[in-house]
């Protein structure tokens, strides 16, 4: 237990030394040591209290005053031999004789010794599996021998380091230094030696050098010679092959007998150097040196002693064939064309392989090539096949369909006895009358809906994953030039996006089922293809801002004027397209710039931008209330819902529940608008539904500094009958406040009450104010006289000034400070004369038809008074 835990327990009031605290519940295994005795080694010790010790337990680091980082001669500070308490010098001269000779190892530390050991190590340093010790360990596990005995064993016995193979070989009688294989005679062995040493060519004196020793030796058989390990020296220089550094010129030219190699002394092991006076001892020779000249040192005895050879050889015997000596031009010969062969090349005896030729097959006499026959044959084979297949495929279905026989009927025809427990239909329990009635109803239904007649497969079109469909709805619309197709595509996606949607696609009247299916296939494919990217990739790409909208959109600098160069057909087409133009373009065409071509949207400048321009942020709060009309990315609320009731929908085969119900709400939407609303928010949107700017704009314009709240006083003055009939009041559900964007502000109760009661009225006031503002600007503007509502402008311009005066007077009377939020309440309460309003509406009504339709939609886009609280 840590000291901290102990302390904690102590704080709680538990006695750590009590038996209860140290009660042991351990049934299996070793219990943890009791609380008091053990010190947790893992316990946290601050850095300056930690001690570093070397492998012998000596303190490794000492403070600055005790010798620094690693003090003394190899960390001997503090130990008995440490330099910090210098020993007195004692002369060893007298007991020089008793002193044994010191070896270099005596003065070496662990690292140096390790180095020596490493340098002596054989090439193969990989650890071998120690079978014996493994067996020992196993035996120990099994028998449970006293660990002391095993420790003794391991100490006494030399560790076995042989590889498994070596150990097995040893058990089979092999010794270190011997070769592998059956035992051979002395003669054979001698031959091997000679082969290995490469002096077989000098074997002429082999027989003569047989002496008496060999007689004795011939009586025994010997193990074969060990195969020398071939160590290929790494070539790490840039000399040519066969070159050694220090080669004499003669050697280099190939002549033997340079004394260089003989003068070279034996290689000395690299472990530690020999002194200048020392001779190279045998022990110092590096027996593992890879040089081939020292082969003899591996042999048990001198190869020179070997005698009579027999023709047994290990490995590949050296070929006695000498290369053709002294090639002369006569042996080379000449090519067939008489030219001499280049010196150093031989003419090949074999000629180059030639392609084999086969004789033509025997052509029957009277045979003529006639490919037509072959073709007709193959066609004749294919055609009946196809027909067969077709018949086989289509027959059963069609027959069943045509015969309209039920399974029971067919069974009765065949004379089968009906199954005893056949599931009975509801109709079986009905009376004959009822059944007839139902049939009549069904027949009338069918006859009234001829469109429904084509057999509708339950799940004819390929399904699209709802997620993909949803994504594709917001993504690229692939058929901009074909609005019908586009609309159908969208309808398809919507039907796929939410499974329980009532939108289903029916085939077009002139469309066959097959065509319809292929169309659905196409839609599902394009949904997969055109769905916007998601995840990490999405940020890397931006969808094209310019979408191809078919032929009618004119963009780019070099636009050919297509209206002039069209012939009569094209003109007719143009005339057909004319109504499809958006009201904006239409207005441009007839030169009616103004409200039709203008579109006003709320725009939020960046805060920093306002700061840089020295302008107050128009919407300091985050924008409130997601307005459905300003959200183009909402696919469901866009073109489809609003345009569900248009007659074009039925034409293009989209069946919605609202379509059936026939709820008419839509404006003048034509086919060109359908489905395009999502791509380009400017299209399909009525130009007159404009966004009301935020309160602050009004505040900035109308509210004066000393204005105060008297809304509760002046609010009841408003007469509802003054409202123009063309502006229908907003639906009364405006008390609903969006939770997400709701911000509580402190408003005096009476002001709030007034606001809620008169919200509708105020809303109209706002609208009026807005219009007035516009008109006032008109008066300042360039051409005043042209304006249609010019006569009414004078009235309107004056009004706000009056109001402001009044307010100022009131402010002087009261002189009370009021929160700013109330200001925007009371700037709308004043009743306005209707004259300006009506005249404005009239002037609007004189405009073209789409505008009038849009005017009915106006209340939708407006904000409510609640939102400004």
């Amino acid at each position, binding site marked *: 237990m840590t000291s901290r835990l102990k302390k904690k327990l102590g704080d709680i009031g538990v006695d750590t030394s009590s038996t209860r605290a140290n009660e042991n519940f351990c049934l299996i295994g070793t219990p943890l040591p009791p609380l008091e005795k053990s010190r947790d080694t893992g316990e946290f010790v601050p850095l300056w209290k930690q001690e570093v010790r070397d492998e012998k337990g000596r303190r490794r680091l000492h403070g600055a005053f005790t010798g620094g980082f690693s003090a003394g001669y190899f960390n001997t500070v503090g130990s008995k031999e440490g330099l910090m308490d210098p020993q007195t010098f004692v002369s060893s001269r007298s007991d020089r004789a008793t002193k044994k000779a010191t070896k270099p190892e005596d003065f070496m530390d662990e690292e140096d010794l390790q180095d020596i050991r490493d340098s002596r190590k054989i090439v193969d340093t990989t650890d071998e599996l120690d079978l014996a010790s493994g067996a020992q360990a196993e035996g120990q596990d099994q028998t449970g021998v006293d660990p002391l005995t095993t420790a003794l064993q391991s100490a006494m016995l030399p560790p076995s380091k042989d590889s498994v193979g070596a150990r097995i070989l040893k058990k089979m009688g092999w010794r270190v230094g011997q070769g592998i294989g059956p035992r051979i005679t002395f003669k054979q062995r001698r031959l091997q030696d000679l082969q290995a040493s490469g002096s077989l060519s000098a074997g002429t004196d082999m027989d003569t050098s047989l002496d008496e020793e060999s007689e004795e030796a011939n009586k025994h058989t010997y193990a074969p010679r060990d195969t020398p390990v071939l160590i290929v020296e790494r070539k790490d220089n840039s000399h040519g092959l066969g070159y050694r550094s220090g080669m004499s010129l003669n050697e280099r030219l190939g002549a033997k007998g340079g004394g260089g190699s003989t003068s070279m002394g034996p290689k000395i092991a690299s472990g530690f150097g020999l002194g200048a006076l020392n001779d190279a001892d045998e022990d110092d020779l590096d027996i593992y040196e890879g040089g081939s000249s020292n082969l003899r040192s591996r042999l048990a005895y001198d190869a020179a002693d070997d005698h009579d050879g027999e023709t047994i050889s290990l490995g590949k015997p050296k070929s006695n064939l000498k290369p053709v000596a002294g090639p002369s031009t006569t042996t080379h010969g000449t090519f067939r064309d008489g030219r001499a062969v280049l010196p150093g090349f031989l003419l090949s005896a074999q000629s180059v392989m030639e392609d084999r030729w086969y004789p033509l097959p025997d052509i029957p006499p009277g045979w003529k090539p006639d490919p037509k026959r072959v073709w007709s044959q193959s066609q004749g084979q294919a055609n009946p096949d196809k027909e067969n297949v077709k018949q086989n495929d289509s027959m059963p279905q069609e027959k069943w369909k045509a015969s309209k026989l039920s399974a029971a009927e067919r069974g009765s025809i065949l004379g089968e006895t009906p199954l005893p427990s056949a599931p009975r239909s509801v109709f079986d329990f009905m009376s004959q009358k009822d059944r007839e009635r139902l049939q009549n109803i069904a027949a009338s239904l069918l006859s009234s809906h001829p469109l429904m007649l084509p057999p509708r497969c339950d799940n004819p079109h390929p399904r699209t994953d709802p997620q993909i469909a949803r994504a594709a709805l917001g993504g690229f619309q692939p058929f901009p030039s074909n609005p019908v197709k586009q609309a159908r595509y969208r309808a398809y996606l919507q039907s796929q996006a939410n499974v329980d949607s009532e939108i289903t696609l029916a085939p077009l009247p002139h469309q066959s089922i097959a065509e319809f299916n292929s169309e659905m296939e196409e839609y599902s494919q394009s949904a997969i293809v055109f769905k916007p990217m998601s995840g990490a990739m999405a940020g890397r790409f931006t969808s094209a801002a310019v979408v191809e909208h078919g032929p009618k959109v004119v*963009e780019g600098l070099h636009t050919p004027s297509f209206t002039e160069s069209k012939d009569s057909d094209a003109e007719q087409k143009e005339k057909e397209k004319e109504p499809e133009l958006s009201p904006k373009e239409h207005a441009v065409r007839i030169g009616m710039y103004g409200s039709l071509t203008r579109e*006003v949207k709320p725009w939020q400048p960046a805060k920093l931008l306002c700061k840089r*321009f020295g302008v107050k942020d128009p919407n300091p709060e985050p924008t409130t209330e997601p307005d459905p009309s300003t959200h183009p990315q909402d696919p469901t609320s866009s073109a489809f819902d609003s345009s569900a009731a248009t007659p074009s929908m039925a034409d293009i085969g989209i069946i919605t529940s609202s379509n059936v119900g026939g709820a008419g709400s839509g404006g003048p939407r034509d086919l060109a608008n359908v489905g395009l609303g999502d791509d380009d928010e400017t299209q399909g949107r009525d130009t007159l539904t404009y966004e009301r700017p935020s309160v602050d704009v009004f505040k900035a314009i109308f509210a004066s500094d000393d204005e105060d709240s008297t809304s509760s006083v002046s609010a009841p003055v408003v007469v509802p009958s003054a409202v123009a009939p063309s502006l229908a009041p907003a639906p009364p559900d405006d008390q609903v406040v969006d939770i997400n964007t709701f911000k509580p502000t402190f408003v005096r109760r009476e002001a709030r009450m007034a606001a809620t009661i008169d919200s509708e009225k105020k809303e109209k006031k706002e609208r009026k104010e807005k219009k007035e503002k516009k008109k006032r600007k008109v008066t300042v503007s360039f051409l005043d006289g042209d304006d249609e509502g010019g006569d009414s402008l004078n009235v309107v311009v004056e009004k706000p000034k009056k109001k402001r005066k009044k307010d100022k007077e009131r402010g002087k009377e009261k002189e009370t400070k009021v929160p700013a939020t109330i200001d925007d309440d009371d700037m709308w309460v004043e009743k306005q004369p209707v004259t300006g309003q009506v005249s404005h509406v009239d002037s609007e009504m004189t405009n073209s038809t789409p505008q009038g339709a849009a005017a009915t939609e106006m209340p939708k886009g407006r904000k409510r008074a609640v939102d400004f609280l």
Partner: protein
Amino acid sequence: MSTASLPRHIHVELQGHKGPVNVARYAKGSAKYILTGGQDRSVRLWNASLGTEIKAFNAHGYEVLSISVAHDNAKFASSGGDRSVFIWDVATGMTTRRLAGHMGKIHVVEFNEDASVVASGSFDSTVRLWDLRAQNRAPIQILEEARDAVQTLHVDSTTIIAGSVDGHVRTYDLRKGELRSDYIGHPVTAVVPTQDSQTFLVTTLDSHIRLMDTTNGKMLNDFTGHSNSSYRCRACFNHGESTVVIGDENGMVWAWDLLDAKLLQPNPPPKAHNKVITWTEYHPSDAGEMITSSADGTCKVWRHPT
């Protein structure tokens, strides 16, 4: 009538660009100097009255399409084919900032009143607003409403007007926090508002110049007669805003009376340049001086004959 008549006498001809001159702007203040930017990737500073070249600013790697001079004449901004806005220090002739971020060539660059923000409109159909006060090189805001290349910009104290090839003039009103987009119907190449910013002059590629009402988007006047169908030409007002002036693609400088939209004499006007006139600008304070720059490689300063 003398104020209405155009200066049609060549005062000096600024020759030095090796290729079309895309833009020529007066300096601010007393406007004694002219900055021109050309296809030869250089911006040149000229003395308007003497016609001498004072300095050439060479750092652009592509053509220079637009120049805007700061209110204090200490720096100017230029942009063009190399997709970044260059802010220059006039005295040293070095760029102090290079604002990269646009995806296409930048057609127009414009300072705001105190040169704390520079707006740039690009072929990538965005308008980027760059902060020059802070060290941050990222744009303050990106206006992405345009559907096609933004050809012209005008920035005044509270509004940013952008004209685009998609046929819209978009007015970003900072004070109201609203965006008024007026559909002109033809690619817009230049928007020049009047001093009172109640009206603005829209040059479009259908060879029309329209005077639009800022408040309600109505067309107040329509000026035709010139030819402008594929190049960026710029119509501007004369000094007293009584005349509308444009140099067209045939190298002629046309003038209309603002109110009755009648072509002023001479009609047809004499050829001022051999090639398309890319920029027409009236002297901000001197009633009798204007400049035109042309694709024939010259920029001409026009004055009344003395």
